[in-house]
């Protein structure tokens, strides 16, 4: 583990000795054991591991979707282990989320789905929000499908709209949970490459949970989890044939 490479102030994510469990009493099941992880600005980190290894739980803690109960967690400089529910909502507004399902509102067009995110950023004037939404959809290759409803788009196109939505408002961190799981290999590859390009060009760090061994090569670092513990953390050369 290279937890010492950055100070607390520049690390995007700094988790120390996180423990987390579901249930209570006899049904209590510990999901995370003493997890420590640091993500630096601009890094693309992939979190792998078998089902039930605690990857997604770790992601929800970092995303402010669950409350940290044991251990320390700083995300974008905010101490989430001391955060109130209101703080957690504020933190989530600085994060771009990409889910396994695209979860687009099916009654809004691609452009409206992306524009909706700017409601969380009232400082951005509506015309600017419209321009930026259009621009990011062009970047993900959907310039011609701005006014299509999700039902008129393919799975890969919908996931690209979801990527555009996650990136539109200029997040300081992107969290992705199995973004390729519902896609065929080519569409999955396209979505991940797109995510990599956009994150690199903006210097935006990405933490991505995936099983998909075909996309591991985009990562700067691969963190492997098993049974709620981090088993390996480092550059996996085998997964980066080009690098």
């Amino acid at each position, binding site marked *: 583990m290279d937890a010492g490479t950055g100070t607390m102030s520049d690390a995007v994510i700094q988790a120390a000795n996180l423990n987390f469990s579901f249930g209570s009493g006899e049904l209590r099941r510990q999901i995370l054991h003493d997890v420590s992880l640091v993500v630096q600005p601009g890094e693309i980190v992939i979190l792998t591991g078998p089902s039930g290894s605690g990857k*997604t739980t770790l*992601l*929800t803690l970092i*995303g402010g*979707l*669950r409350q940290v109960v044991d251990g320390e967690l700083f995300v974008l400089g905010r101490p989430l282990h001391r955060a109130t529910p209101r703080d957690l*909502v*504020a933190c*989530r*507004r600085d*994060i*771009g*989320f990409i*889910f*396994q*399902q695209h*979860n*687009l*509102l*099916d*009654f*809004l067009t691609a452009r*409206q789905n992306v524009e*909706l*995110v700017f*409601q*969380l950023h009232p400082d951005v004037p509506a015309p600017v929000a419209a321009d930026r939404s259009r621009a990011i959809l062009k970047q993900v290759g959907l310039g011609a499908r701005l006014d299509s409803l999700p039902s008129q788009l393919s799975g890969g196109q919908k996931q690209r709209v979801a990527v555009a*939505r*996650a990136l539109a408002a200029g997040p300081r961190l992107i969290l992705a*949970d199995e973004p390729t799981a519902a896609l065929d290999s080519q569409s999955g590859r396209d979505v991940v490459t797109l995510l990599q390009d956009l994150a690199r060009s903006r210097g935006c760090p990405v933490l991505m949970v995936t099983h998909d061994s075909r996309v591991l090569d985009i990562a700067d670092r691969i963190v492997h989890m098993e049974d709620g513990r981090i088993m390996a953390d480092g550059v996996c050369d085998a997964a980066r044939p080009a690098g």
Partner: protein
Amino acid sequence: MIAALVLAWRQLVHHKVKLCVALAGVAVAVMLMLVQLGIRQGAMDTSVAFTRRITADAVVVSPRTRTIFSAASFPRRLLHRLRADERIEQVQEISIAQARWRNPWNYFEHPISIYGIPIDEPLVELPGYDDHRDDLRPRDRAIFDARSRATYGPVVETLAREGAVEVEVNRRRIRVIGSVPVGVSITTDGNLYMTPENFLRLLPGRPAGAIDLGLVKVRPGADVAAVCHDLQPYLGAEATIMSSAALVAAETAFMRETAPVDFIFGMGAAVGFFIGFVVVYQILYTEVANQLPKFATLKAIGFGNGFLLAVVLGQAMILSLLGYVPGFVLAIWLYDVATAAIEMPFFMTAERAVMVAGATVLMCALSAIMAVRKVQSADPADVF
């Protein structure tokens, strides 16, 4: 807030059929509320319509009288005492009773309300009654209410053709010599107006010294309340003097308490409210349930419960306003249908229109609040 409304609108219009069903539900609820409350108002209004026509400033009734349509009587001599007060300009008496009218065309008998009203300066506003003054004086003459129900026969048409109709009332031959348009109510199907003398001829058993209703007109400038207060001691415990407005209030209260008008039509309106509530709740709830993963996603990316609440409430507001318009139009049409069918006039009042609009908004807002509890339970962590 505007963004939430825009989102609400887009979600509503996405499913056109669902939108139509929801609007139909709201429209039916609005229509039911307006029609039921309108009939209630109509029934109340027509029942006190005659009381409202009294132009006297004050009335004298027996303390045992609950409604002037089945009044207890009091001695006429009490009424004479009032004339002693210099503030009194005119004292009159009118009588109301039920009689049996025999339809001269098919010989069926039907009850009819009969009124004994003085023909010289009557303190009751009956348009056209004065015109027949001299024709009414002879024995057994009467004037028919042109708005009586059809069950009495084609009286008005025959009057127009032949000038008079001979009928049998309480087994006496009565000559109907004209008609005035007054109107019926839920308690009476028809009215017949005549002089007090002819009234007594129809009710031979009635003691001549007993009267039902005294009308008092005070001189201009006199304070009615003060007159009533000062004169009450002269009447003792056998009669009560009150202002005409107080009589209207008492008659209205009597209708409310004894006739189940309030309950029946109030219940009808409540059923309308409930139907609308259930339909709107069902529509909003299924919409929320269908969109739950998406709403959870919105929460995950930083939208608060307040925004999602505003979206669902916004849908409720849009439904209530859009559904109100067709419901209102439908109700206006049904007022006309009901007026023709029940032969009682029903009107839309601004007060009722506003009240039902408020009830509609409340109905939709309640549905939204019930439906939105589901949104609040959406756990953003579940979308992963």
